[in-house]
């Protein structure tokens, strides 16, 4: 990695999701040199696994295509994937980042021709589909993957499969001897955009995510609805593959709950409202969506979207935190128990499938890596003005995509202020 040049005027962006990509591109287009680090083998992050965005119901890949084109065409950006930041030391204008580069076992020669994938027979759970599908152990992470380069999963190292992959490649791109490597990068400022992860639904025990096949999470439902997903967009139940026409959406699954996440994750109401439109898209008037909520948080113009969904007769709203879920073992149906608190109506509602609108938590505990201030949930707070590490997107707050991009853009200016100060001092 000798070709990575980083100086005190470099902005390092950690995380290659929508926030990190935005930060990198915006900074580079302002004339700054950027190194973009991503832990996964390709850019895109959490949003690339979404079927559509609310409220426009457009596809995340659309904006991603633009961002990738901006990024590919900009020589000021250097992208390192499978890069994990271990430690950040120093101060604003003079940081040293210790970064581990995990081996891909495929080098730059890769043309993404797919020969290694065809050669390999071992299959592994596909993280892009949250394990709901399997893929070859030599794989392109997604159709939009950038870098457009295959990955050899370490699980097949030392097996005949690995050798087959190597033999299949005409371009000497498979390199099974790659080793993890730790490098040190200089930076004037750091934009920390490591994003969020879905709260572990199994911890919400009354909902039985760990016990009932037909209780899934909202992020899994995105994959299920996506024509490129594990079921080619058929909304079916994991237990038996039956079409799930009657679906329950449980809000605040983990959020707004002192037993789990104390904050409101902001996006989940809108995400569920959006997912009711997937139901209508698939099943038309046959769809039955029930949203169990405490407060519907469709803030600002999103209210329009809420009103639109409310007007859909296939969607029902119940003001109720579901008490618990049981499973009808004979049919696999899930039965939600609780009380509609608007007027006290007790229910035991049978559904084909239950979707938990799981909350957001920061995907990386940054406290062990860098000296930054975080709130009780682990989100980065805007620190004193002399710092040079700035949280962006969902590393800084529970945000939707639009606000994440705003946050990333704002964090770029803060980083630019630091490196411009350095540039001035360095003359």
């Amino acid at each position, binding site marked *: 990695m000798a070709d990575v040049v980083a100086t005190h005027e470099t902005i390092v962006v950690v995380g290659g999701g929508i926030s990190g990509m935005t930060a990198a591109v915006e900074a580079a287009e302002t004339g700054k040199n950027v190194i973009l680090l991503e832990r996964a083998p390709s850019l895109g992050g959490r949003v690339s696994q979404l079927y559509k965005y609310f409220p426009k119901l457009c596809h995340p890949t659309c904006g991603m295509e633009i961002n990738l084109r901006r990024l590919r065409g900009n020589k000021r950006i250097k992208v390192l994937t499978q890069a994990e930041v271990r430690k950040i030391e120093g101060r604003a204008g003079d940081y040293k980042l210790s970064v581990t580069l995990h081996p891909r076992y495929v080098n730059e020669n890769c043309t993404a021709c797919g020969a290694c994938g065809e050669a390999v027979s071992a299959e592994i759970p596909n993280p892009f589909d949250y394990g709901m599908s399997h893929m070859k152990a030599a794989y392109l992470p997604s159709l939009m993957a950038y870098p457009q380069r295959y990955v050899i999963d370490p699980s097949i190292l030392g097996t005949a499969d690995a050798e087959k992959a190597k033999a299949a490649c005409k371009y000497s791109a498979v390199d099974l001897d790659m080793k993890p490597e730790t490098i040190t990068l200089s930076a004037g400022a750091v934009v920390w955009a490591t994003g969020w992860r879905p709260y572990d639904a199994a911890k919400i025990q*009354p909902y039985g995510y760990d016990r009932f096949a037909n209780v899934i999470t909202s992020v899994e439902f995105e994959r299920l609805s996506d024509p490129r997903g594990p079921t080619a967009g058929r909304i079916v139940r994991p237990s038996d593959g039956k079409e799930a026409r009657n679906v329950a959406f449980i809000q*605040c699954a983990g959020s*707004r*709950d*002192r*037993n*789990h996440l104390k904050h409101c994750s902001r996006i989940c109401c809108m995400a569920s409202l959006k997912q009711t439109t997937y139901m209508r898209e698939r099943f038309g008037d046959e769809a039955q969506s029930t949203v169990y909520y*405490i407060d519907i948080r469709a803030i600002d113009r999103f209210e329009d979207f809420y009103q639109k969904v409310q007007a859909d007769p296939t969607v029902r709203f119940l*003001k*109720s*935190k*579901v*008490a*618990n879920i049981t499973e009808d073992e004979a049919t696999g149906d899930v039965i939600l*128990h*609780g*009380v*509609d*608190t608007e007027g*006290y109506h*007790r229910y035991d509602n049978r559904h084909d499938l239950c979707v938990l609108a799981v909350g957001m938590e920061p995907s990386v505990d940054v406290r062990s890596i860098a000296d930054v201030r975080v709130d009780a949930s682990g989100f980065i707070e805007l620190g004193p003005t002399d710092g040079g590490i700035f949280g962006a997107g969902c590393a800084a707050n529970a945000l939707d995509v639009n606000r994440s991009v705003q946050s990333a853009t704002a964090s770029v200016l803060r980083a630019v202020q630091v490196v411009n100060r350095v540039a001035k001092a360095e003359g």
Partner: protein
Amino acid sequence: MGDINTAMAEQYRNNFLKEVEANVEEGQWVKMCMQCGVCSGSCPLGPAWEHPPQEIFMMIRAGRRDEVLKSESMWMCTSCYNCIVRCPRELPITHIMHGLANYAHRLGLAPKMNPTRRFAKKFWNNLAKSGRVNEIELSAGLYFMDGFKTGIARAWAMKDIGIGMLKAKRLNPFGFVTHKGCKDKKGIHRMLKKAREIEDRRKGFAA
């Protein structure tokens, strides 16, 4: 008792919530409810509640004093603690329900014939007598609390259980006389009396 009720109603006029906060065990939590209803849905005897906990909390805020205190609802609590562990606001709902029942009972507003109220009273009196529960005396007392005839009928209905327990040596037929209880009965009586006094003083019951 009626006097205490009037006095309390006067003291906290128009603000039942404040009355609950001051006088009901864990009553200060009532205001923290966000009306999600998880407690109401979690209660094993849920359908038996005319007003489930979350609704009771709202009624308290809305000042529906009589409706709440005269309700049978709180007496349906089985102390299973489902509501407590699921409440996203960590309200000690079980205790609040107990507290409300106890308060209603102290004010004399609790439904007179509510079986749980009556059982609970007998139970406490039984344990307080010797410091330990005397099971046979408690059972008999419960059967016969509505008079001899009903008592016999109840005991007859339950006879198989009694016989089973006797056979299994899990019921002492001579417990009326042989039950010993604690040695320091007097001390316990004094202690409970004192506790009651302190509580009455704190809650303004010492009329």
